[in-house]
Every structure is written in structure tokens, then in C-alpha cells.
């Protein structure tokens, strides 16, 4: 039964992916991509990775989908040139063969992985009591491979600043993104008033339970960002200008707190990013709280894009 389900799910994912590539319009392609992301989230549930399923649904399908939709709307035109740039049939055949070889090689390699599978599962779980957290993924992200997570948080800051720096000079200091008229009535206005209070509670809840259950800063932060984007699109919330220092501190707060706690480890524990016994959980929660804020801010700003409107 579950095998049949898996095969159907796998075929659906591949089918939607193929459709997304082949369909002519950009808009349906993006919708197809969001469906693809949601199906992948289901696959992740089937693989027993609920944390990843949440991240895939929120970030991979949701936030990326919004990003792509904005781009579709703003990129209307350029048709003739696209036809000119289409690769010739022989080129396409060559590309297809090359990609087929890569896919085949991967499949062969995956099927030939050694048995029993090497795994760090036991090792990762063994140290969890020391950290005071119950979710092994949080253990990996915040302790064992904390440096990965720190660098990743810094990558988000890079991305925000890089996106801002693409703006024309005269727009520096201005408000990011297009201007949306205030929706005083209608369905969007209703949604933007009703949903955020619920969404903010859900987002904080998901970030909070991450220590012991599926969830965490990235998933919770994405939900918070979605609420912000909703209020922004409905014209109910004005984004601060890029010159705003408060906005910038919100973006860097997460990584800065992360580094601060890390450096504290030199003094009160065995070095950078090591947590003293008994204090691990509060310190992890402190980092997660700051990171949730920064992740949410960074995602809103990445969706909004470079500064465009005078403050």
C-alpha cells in the first residue's frame, strides 16, 4: 500500500516537474513549481523528515514561489529575443544526453551505496541530553554543525545587501520594492487584517517548539515573513527605507547574537560555539529567537527587492 503511494507520489513529482519545464507561459510554470514544492514536502513527510517538509513547504514552495511570481509580473515582454536564444535541436539533443548521463550516473551511484548505511543518527542523539534539546536536527544545526548555520545566517545578510546594492545610485536610502495601494476593502484587505495575528502566533510557536519538535527559526521566520509580505502587499504596512538603522539591526541581530554567544564560549566553556553544561538550552533559545527575527526580516527584504521609492 505504502509502496503504491510512494510510486504515485514519485511519478506525480516528476510529472509536475516536467510540466513546469515544458509549459509555455511563465505564470503557469511558477504555479507548477509551487505545486512541485508542495508535493516534495509530502515526499519529505514520507521520508520521515518533518522539519525539512516544513522548510520545503514554507521556503522552497511558498517564499520562492512568491519571489518568482513577483518576477513574472515585472518581467513582461522580451519575447522575440527569447526565440532567438532558443538552442538548436542538435544542441538540445546533446544537452539531453549529457543530463541523462548525469541522472543515470546518480541513480547508479545511489543504488550502489554500501549496506549497512553509515549513519550519525546514534551519535547525534547520544549528546542531546547534554544540550537539553529534544530535536536532533536542532542539535545538528545549533551545536555539532553550528558553524554551518552561522555562515548560512551570514549568507542571508550578504544576499540582502547584494540585492540592495543592485539599485540605481539615486535610489539609495529609499524604500525597497514596488508600492502597493492601500486596500481599504475587499478580500485582500480582510485577509491581511485577519491572518497576521494568527500567523504571527503560529510562526513564533513553530520557532519556539523547534528545540524539541519539528520546527525552528527558519520555518517560523518564513511564516512571520509571509505575514509581513501579506500586510505589505495589502498596503497596510510600509516597509522601512534601506537607510533605516533599525531595519539593518533587525537583519544582523541573528548572526551577531550567534557570534556573541559563540565568543562567550571562549570564556565560559571550551571555545567558540561550545555551550557550558546546563546553560546550553537557554543559549540556544536566545540564538533561535534573534535568528527568527533576522530570518523573517531578510526574507521580506529579499522578496521586496532593491530600493525603488523615495522615502
Amino acid at each position, binding site marked *: 500500500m505504502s509502496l503504491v503511494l510512494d510510486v504515485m507520489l514519485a511519478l506525480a513529482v*516528476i510529472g509536475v516537474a516536467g510540466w513546469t519545464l515544458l509549459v509555455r507561459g511563465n505564470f503557469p510554470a511558477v504555479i507548477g513549481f509551487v505545486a512541485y514544492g508542495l508535493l516534495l514536502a509530502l515526499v519529505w513527510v514520507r521520508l520521515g523528515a518533518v522539519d525539512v517538509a516544513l522548510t520545503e513547504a514554507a521556503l522552497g514552495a511558498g517564499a520562492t514561489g512568491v519571489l518568482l511570481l513577483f518576477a513574472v509580473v515585472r518581467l513582461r515582454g522580451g519575447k522575440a529575443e527569447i526565440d532567438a536564444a532558443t538552442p538548436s535541436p542538435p544542441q538540445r539533443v546533446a544537452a539531453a544526453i549529457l543530463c541523462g548521463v548525469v541522472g543515470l550516473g546518480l541513480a547508479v551511484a545511489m*543504488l550502489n551505496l554500501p549496506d549497512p548505511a553509515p549513519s550519525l543518527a546514534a551519535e547525534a542523539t547520544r549528546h542531546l541530553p547534554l544540550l537539553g534539546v529534544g530535536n536532533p536536527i536542532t542539535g*545538528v544545526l545549533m551545536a555539532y554543525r553550528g558553524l554551518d548555520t552561522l555562515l548560512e545566517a551570514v549568507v542571508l545578510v550578504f544576499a540582502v545587501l547584494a540585492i540592495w546594492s543592485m539599485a540605481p545610485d539615486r535610489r539609495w536610502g529609499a524604500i525597497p520594492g514596488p508600492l502597493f495601494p492601500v486596500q481599504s476593502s475587499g478580500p485582500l484587505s480582510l485577509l491581511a487584517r485577519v491572518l497576521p495575528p494568527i500567523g504571527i502566533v503560529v510562526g513564533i510557536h513553530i520557532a519556539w517548539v523547534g528545540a524539541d519538535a519539528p520546527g525552528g527559526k527558519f520555518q517560523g521566520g518564513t511564516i512571520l515573513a509571509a505575514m509581513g509580505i501579506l500586510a505589505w502587499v495589502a498596503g497596510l504596512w510600509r516597509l522601512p527605507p534601506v537607510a533605516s538603522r533599525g531595519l539593518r539591526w533587525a537583519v544582523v541581530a541573528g548572526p551577531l547574537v550567534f557570534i556573541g554567544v559563540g565568543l562567550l564560549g571562549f570564556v565560559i566553556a571550551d571555545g567558540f560555539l561550545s555551550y557550558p553544561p546546563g546553560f546550553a538550552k537557554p543559549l540556544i533559545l536566545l540564538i533561535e529567537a534573534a535568528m527568527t527575527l533576522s530570518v523573517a526580516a531578510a526574507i521580506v527584504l529579499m522578496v521586496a527587492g532593491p530600493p525603488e521609492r523615495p522615502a
Partner: protein
Amino acid sequence: MIFGVTGAALVALGLYGLVTQPALLRKILAFNLLGGGVFLLFGVVARRGAVADPVPQALVITGLVVAFAATALALVLVLRLFQITGAATIAEDKTPP
């Protein structure tokens, strides 16, 4: 293992789209399809043992965030190029600049 083969197929599909699609937006879309396939392989590797291995799952979360940032950055570049020149591809210019 079904999903292992699925992941490999998605990688092949995404790679093909990334190489052959002329429009930049569609290339970026294909890159995200491709990313989904790669991450799926991590999930399959994590699931091979008796107990799910949290390490590859955590790597996927990191990877998803990085892929999102890359997508955002690429789209802004595409948008700015479009705003300045009206071009939606990076085909070679027929006329020298």
C-alpha cells in the same frame, strides 16, 4: 530507493531545463527544480539506516536557505537587466557594445 531514483530524475530534468531554457526566469525556475532533486537525495541518504539520520536533514535545511538566497539574488539581477535593456536572456549581443 524509489525516491532516490526520483531525485536522480529530477536532477536530470532540472539540469536540462537550466541548460536549454532560453529565458532567464525559466532558467532560475529550473535551478530550483534541480535543487529540489538534490535535496531529495539527501533525504534518501538520511533514510537508508534503521533510524533517520538528522545530519543530512539538517544539511538540507541549510541548503534550502542558501538556494532561496541565490534565487532572490539571481532574480534581482534579471530584473535590473530587464529594466535597463529590456533583455530577458543573456544571449550574445549581435552588435558590439
